[in-house]
Every structure is written in C-alpha cells, then in structure tokens.
C-alpha cells in the first residue's frame, strides 16, 4: 500500500464510523463532526506522505480540528434544540451530559472509554502528560456518572 491516497482511503473506510461517532460525542453536534471528519481527511490527502501511522494521525488531527473549532466558538453549553433534534433520545441524553464536562475531560473520556485509544495517544492529542490524562479521565468519569445518574441512565 505505497500510494498514500490509497492508504488514507483505507484508514478512512476502517476508522470513519468510530471516529465520527466519537466526534459527535465530543462536539455534541453532528454537523461539526461531519466537518471535522472531512477536514481531517482533506488534510491527510494534502499532506500525502511522511506519516508512519495514519490511524493515530487522523484521530489526533480530527480531535485537534474539532477542539480548535469549539475553542473558536462559544463554549458549549447545554445543547439547544437545533443541536439535538437529530439525535435519537438515548444518545441525545448522553451527549447532553457529555457537553457539561470540560473539553479536556470529555476528550479523555470519549477517546479512552469509547474509542479505546491509548493513554499515550490521548496525552499527545491533549499536549499533556499521561498522568494528566488520568486526572482528566477520572474527573470526567465521575462527573459523567453523576450527570447520567441525575437522568436515571446509570
């Protein structure tokens, strides 16, 4: 698989579903997830070569793109009807709870507990140490558990 375009398309086909769902969970907005996913693979195609592990690269880049977009917009508060109407009810409840976590906690929980990405990878995505990832993860899980308990989902 020496053609980078073919390699990137292969990663797209393999990772698209999980990555997009993780981005929905992180952004709380499926349109933002669509955009971050497309932007990530556009950047991968533009880059073309020099990446050893495309799957790790697209996960890092996708979450950096999505985090950058969130930071440039207002902080995500409780989801508006516009955000949530397209999500089925149980997922809507989950996403509403997730957006109440800090961005770093949410990123750590989604990447670690949903996407099964390694702590090293999450640390690199966040630009922090592995120990700090565990702090975000632990605080995020605790908060999410409380929020879901309030909704009767746990």
């Amino acid at each position, binding site marked *: 698989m020496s053609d980078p375009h073919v390699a990137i*398309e292969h990663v*797209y086909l393999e990772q*698209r*579903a999980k990555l*997009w*769902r*993780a981005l*929905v*969970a992180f952004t709380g907005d*499926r*349109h*933002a997830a*669509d*955009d971050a*996913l*497309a*932007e*990530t*693979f*556009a*950047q*991968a*195609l*533009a*880059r073309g070569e020099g990446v050893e592990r495309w799957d790790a690269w697209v996960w*890092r*880049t996708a979450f*950096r*793109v999505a985090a*950058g977009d969130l*930071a*440039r*917009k*207002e902080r995500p508060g409780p989801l508006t009807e516009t955000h949530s109407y397209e*999500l*089925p009810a*149980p*997922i809507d409840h*989950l996403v509403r709870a997730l957006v109440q976590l800090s961005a770093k906690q949410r990123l750590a*929980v*989604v990447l670690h*507990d*949903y996407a099964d990405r390694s702590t090293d990878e999450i640390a*690199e*995505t*966040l*630009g*922090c140490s592995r120990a700090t990832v565990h702090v975000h993860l632990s605080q995020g*899980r605790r908060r*999410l*558990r409380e929020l*879901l308990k309030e909704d009767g*989902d*746990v």
Partner: protein
Amino acid sequence: MSDIKRNLRILDGLEPPDVWGDAETRIPRNGVVGDRPRRRGPVIVVAFAVSIASIAFLVRAVGSGTDGEPADPNARRYEANGMVLQEGEGPAKLCLGVILDSLPPQCGGLPITNWDWDAAEGEESAQGVRWGVYHVVGSYDGTSFTLTEPPVTPEPYVGPPDEIVAPCQEPSSGWPVPDPSTAGDADFRRATNVAEKEPDFAGAWIDGSPTVLTLAFTGDLQRHETEVRQEWGGPLCLWEFDRTFDELRRIQRDLEPASEELGLTLLSSGIAVYRNQVDIDVVLADDEALAELERRFGPGAVRVTSALTPVT
C-alpha cells in the same frame, strides 16, 4: 465493562455520513489569523470554482528580532488574534497565513521579540513545541512584533457570517420546479458546464433545500435562462454581476505582483464567486495601498483582510 463504557456504546447506533468526496475536493482550511466562519449545512460551492480559486502563501519568518528589547512607547500599536508558536529555544512567532493542523502545528510568521509563556495562559505543547491562541497587542516594525500588553484569550468571533446563499428573492409561492425530472445533481452539473462556457459567465453556486442553482453573468440573463433551462429543471436564480469569472482570475493573478509592489505581504488569496470579489489576506494593510488596489482593479473588486489592525 464499566458503566461508562456501556453508556458510551449506545453511540454505535448512529449512522455515520460518507464525507470522502468532501475530503477529496475541499481545500484544507487556513489557520486562525483572519479566519472566517465557515457555513455549515447544505451548501456546496461548485467545485471547479473553489479548486482553482484559493492560493495560500507560506510566510517566511522575517528577521530575528531582539530578545527582550523594550517596546517603543510612541510606536503605533496593532492587535491580532492568532496562534503563537515556539519551537524549542527559537523565537516565539505570531503565526500568519497557513497553519498546518499537525501535532505539533506548524506555521510561518512574525517573530515576537518579548514573548513570555509565564504571562500567557492555556498553552499546549508537544515534541518541544509550545503553542496557544491569543489576542496580542503590540508594535510592528515591519519584521517583528513587540508586545506592549500581556497576551489574553481572544474573544469568540462575533462578526456576520459569510453566507453563500441564492441572491434572488424566493417567490411567495416557493421556488418553481418546471421539470422535476431534470433537477438532480447530474443536471445542475450539466447546466453549470453550459454556463461556464459563456464568455460573460461570472460564477455558479448552489444552496439550500430545495437546491437553488445560482448562475451569474455580466448580462443577457434572458438568453442564458433559455439555454440553462434546457439542462436544469429545478429552482434557478439568474444574477447579474459586474465582473466575469475570468476577470476575477486575472485580478487574483495580478494581485501577487501588485501586492509586492505596494509593500503588502500577501498571505492568501481566493475568489469569492458569490460576492464577485477576490479576497486577499495580508500582514498589514495601509490606507494608501488599499486605495491603490481599488484604483487598479475597480471599486469593490478586492476585499482585503489585514492580520494586524491598528489599535484605535
């Protein structure tokens, strides 16, 4: 499996979209300086226009600056929102133009002579590179930037969205669809191909649901409508613009030497077909240069966005 993991598994019920076509045709967007909000939703600017329209210039780091040199209190002050990035022990720089969304990010830009990470909050780091997005205020000597105030987190962009919409008023009875059998994707592409062959073609874009195809020309709209209607039976907006698409391309091409001549450091340029304008991003625009651009290319032909703006 933990309760959290079990709860997150319900995300597997979401059906993902296929964005590969979008990824293959879109131009990766630029960085935060001069960043404009992108419209989300069912908008597609006809691909041929976009694919040739945007050019980004990688800014070379200019000058090395003098570490710790105090700012001249009488110098004019400028402000900018942008990424500040420092590689190892190199000078911190204010990123201008293209920022690669790699990890760590990469960019070219202006050296900042007196940057201090201890005075900045919220930076990130990876592989010996530190970066963050800040609102900076300081002086600019043409080669480097010197802070006169501590950097702060920038306010979110609150300007008007740059909407790509059909400029025609929707009829009170809704957009007419004279022939639903020729209102599909292949049909609007055929209609656009017909339109772009015309010497007075000025642009094409689609928007909304139902899809409204807008075709712009510099005149003779009635004749164009008759021709286009042979291919496209969906909602149609014919619009008159002053400049043809070929003229916009010529202006975009000529702007590169013109900017250099006028002392403007060009960061990127692109054609906004739906505004019939060429957009350029520059490091710093002065009134004299703006007036000269207007004189050379005509009123409203070029929209200039300056990365640094004077503090008023």
